[in-house]
């Protein structure tokens, strides 16, 4: 039994990892033995459920995990939250504030965890940050340079759920649409429902565009959580065994 359990633990193969661009000075990502798995998708697309299921599955399989997300850095998350309340940041400032938050977590959590051989599960990554900014009219080349500091993940899953369904899921949980997730700061419409639909449709289109560049896996988020998870597990197994 014990021997059996040990046999089932997959020893991960080392990834050929690169940065997207200039990277972090002094850190060679090729030397990091962990894995970086990203789950992307709108609020209500089932990201947290999927990540929770992956943690169960990975830990059961003998892998150590660490979770990261957006706006969780020690350095700026509180200040970013505060600044957003007043909604007075202009778009370049907001963009750079988020990039600072991301870089802080990258250097203090993601890279050390990868170095220690952990499987890092990222609840959203640079793609959400880029998509949000692009929908707000920021220059794509500028964003690519900025986020050239990020390492390429081993797998990226985008949970695709149409805006009509996102609305239903949001109301079932919160009974209110989020100001930023509705893109109200852009002034698409005074009507929050219309704004949400327009904004989420634009986000989805932008993700499709980014998918063509970064080649992440689009996952149909309309199926049951278990069906989606088994999909993700299959792909992650392939990453671990290096196939």
């Amino acid at each position, binding site marked *: 039994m014990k021997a059996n359990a040990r046999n089932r633990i997959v020893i991960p193969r080392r990834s050929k990892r690169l940065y997207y661009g200039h990277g972090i*000075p002094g850190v060679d990502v090729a030397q990091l033995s962990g894995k970086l798995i990203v789950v992307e998708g709108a609020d209500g697309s089932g990201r947290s459920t999927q990540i929770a299921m992956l943690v169960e599955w990975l830990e059961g399989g003998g892998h150590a995990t660490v979770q990261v997300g957006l706006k969780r850095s020690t*350095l*700026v998350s509180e*200040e970013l939250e505060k600044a957003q309340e007043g909604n007075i940041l202009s778009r*370049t*400032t907001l963009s750079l504030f988020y*990039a*600072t938050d991301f870089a*802080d977590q990258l250097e203090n959590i993601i890279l050390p965890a990868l170095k220690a051989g952990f499987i890092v599960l990222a609840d959203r990554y640079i793609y959400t940050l880029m998509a949000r900014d692009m929908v707000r009219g920021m220059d794509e080349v500028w964003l690519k340079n900025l986020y050239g500091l990020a390492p390429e993940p081993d797998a990226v899953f985008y949970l695709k759920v149409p805006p009509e369904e996102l609305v239903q899921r949001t109301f079932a949980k919160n009974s209110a649409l989020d100001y930023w997730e509705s893109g109200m700061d852009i002034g698409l419409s005074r009507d929050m429902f219309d704004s949400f639909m327009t904004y989420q449709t634009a986000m989805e289109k932008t993700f499709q565009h980014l998918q063509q560049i970064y080649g992440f896996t689009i996952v149909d988020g309309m199926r049951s959580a278990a069906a989606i998870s088994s999909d993700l597990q299959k792909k992650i197994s392939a990453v671990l065994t290096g196939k």
Partner: protein
Amino acid sequence: MKTFAELNFPGRLIAVEGLDGSGKSTQIYLLKRWLELQGLKVYFSEWNSSELVKAATSKGKKRELLTPTTFSLIHATDFADRYERYLVPMLRAGYLVLCDRYIFTAFARDVVRGCTPEWVRGIYSFAALPDLTFFFKADLEISLQRILDGRPQLKYFEAGMDLRLSTDPYESFRMFQGRILEQYLAMSTEFNFLVMDANQLVERQQVIVRELVAQRLGLEQFRRAEHHASPMLPVELPKRFKHEVPTE
């Protein structure tokens, strides 16, 4: 990259750059007073002074949380906030905008800290170039003395301690400033710096600064309309001249 004049802004931006202790803040302060006293529309902005970002920056510095990348990004955030909310609107309204340090400070410092020059320049590419950039070039020893004489307690990042050049803050500061000076000098031609001999007397330098500004910018167009007479605001002294008023 273009200047504000080339982009047809009615306003003009003047920046001063140089090492800590080169006397640039004194010079831009005197320039500001001269322009204001002529009844011109003037706005002054200092590096690393955005209210929104300040809390995060000072926390990062105090707790030594910053890496070269986050150091660079948080200063870029600060700059973007001032640029979008103050500098650009003021320049649109035909103001003379004076900046104590501009993007070149980041170009020099961040690169010395190890960031890739292309990455840093790319981040700041949303900003237009100043119409005039004065670079105050003092002998390294003179700049160092001015700082070290007055303020013996050097802060961690200010001394470049994060670069691990030396465990002695003073030695570290010297080496750090020396490397920044090299970066400035390398940029000087590319960005048309007006190089000032900062070893000269304050007054001699100010004569040249005022002459160049008058010559190059045609100051009459920045005059405040008669009916918008400038209110007599209390004069805001630069930080280093502020004296603590003892409270009871």
